């Protein structure tokens, strides 16, 4: 009797309802996965970044005082 019970437990298969639920879940997950990937690809395609550059330039000349000082030094050397 006990042996028969054990045998029946071993042979007992998963119910069809569980398989059906898993099948539906699988389909939903696959669909969501496909949707996510396609949505992401679409996002990347319509959101390209674009760049361009600009520049600022300014030139500082020696100040008048510095020029005078330099000139004075030259005069001093010459003198």
């Amino acid at each position, binding site marked *: 009797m006990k042996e028969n019970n054990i045998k029946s437990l071993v042979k007992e298969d*998963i119910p069809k309802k569980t398989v059906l639920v898993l*099948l539906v879940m699988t389909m939903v997950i696959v669909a969501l996965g496909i949707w996510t990937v396609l949505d992401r690809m679409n996002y990347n395609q319509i959101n390209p970044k674009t760049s361009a550059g600009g520049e600022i330039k300014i030139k500082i000349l020696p100040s008048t005082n510095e020029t005078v000082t330099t000139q004075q030094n030259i005069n001093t050397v010459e003198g």
Partner: protein
Amino acid sequence: MKEVPNRRLVGILIVVMFIAVAGTFFSIFKQSITGYASFGTVQITIGAISAINVNSDVNFGQSAISNDINNLTSVSTEAADNYGDFNNCSVIDGGVDSPTQDCTGIEVENQGTSNLNITMIATANVSTFYNNENAGANFTFAVLDGNRTKNETAMQIMGAGNEAIGPNNASCQINGNTGTSISPSGSYLNGSWMNWTVIPAVDEYLICGNLSSTTATNNTITIEFNLTIPYNQPAGELSNTFTFTGAIA
């Protein structure tokens, strides 16, 4: 025909679920797919075109500077009479030594079909630009509505007497840094949208949220600059390069 046990079916379904989830994550994080095919049909999505142009550089020209620590030299892209022999920036090509030199600001134009968020990054900040830490040195920018000739501004579009900037007639509608309107209700177009801001270091700085596209009358902004030069700045040429990036808003 031998019936397949449900236990095996469940195992197969679990494997399929795992593959689906793993495949999704792999596709998202790899991000290297450029197209896809489904049942022999190639699907192509034509996205919005995103493109910006920088229409002008700034060249202040050349001059000696003030040596007075209490009266430092300032030059501005908005000024007509800059210090010494520096260029006139109130008109295009207002160069003193070379007429073709222009310092009216860096004009950024949205040439795409979608509104863009514009960021700016500079190669040098205040201290690296002047290569020292002298007191009083400064380098700031501001964002103006319209192009560098001050056309295409909200005021021009609205007409004289209607200078109040509305949310829909300015090119750049949102200050992305505060999330608020860049032109608060009741403000007038006699100054900068964004107050003079110190040039940011290293990081990209959002200077304009929602810059209008080519479908709008006004699709330009002008970046104005203001430099205060240290009294003991050595002679030589200084330059700073800015990269502007537009991403669909």
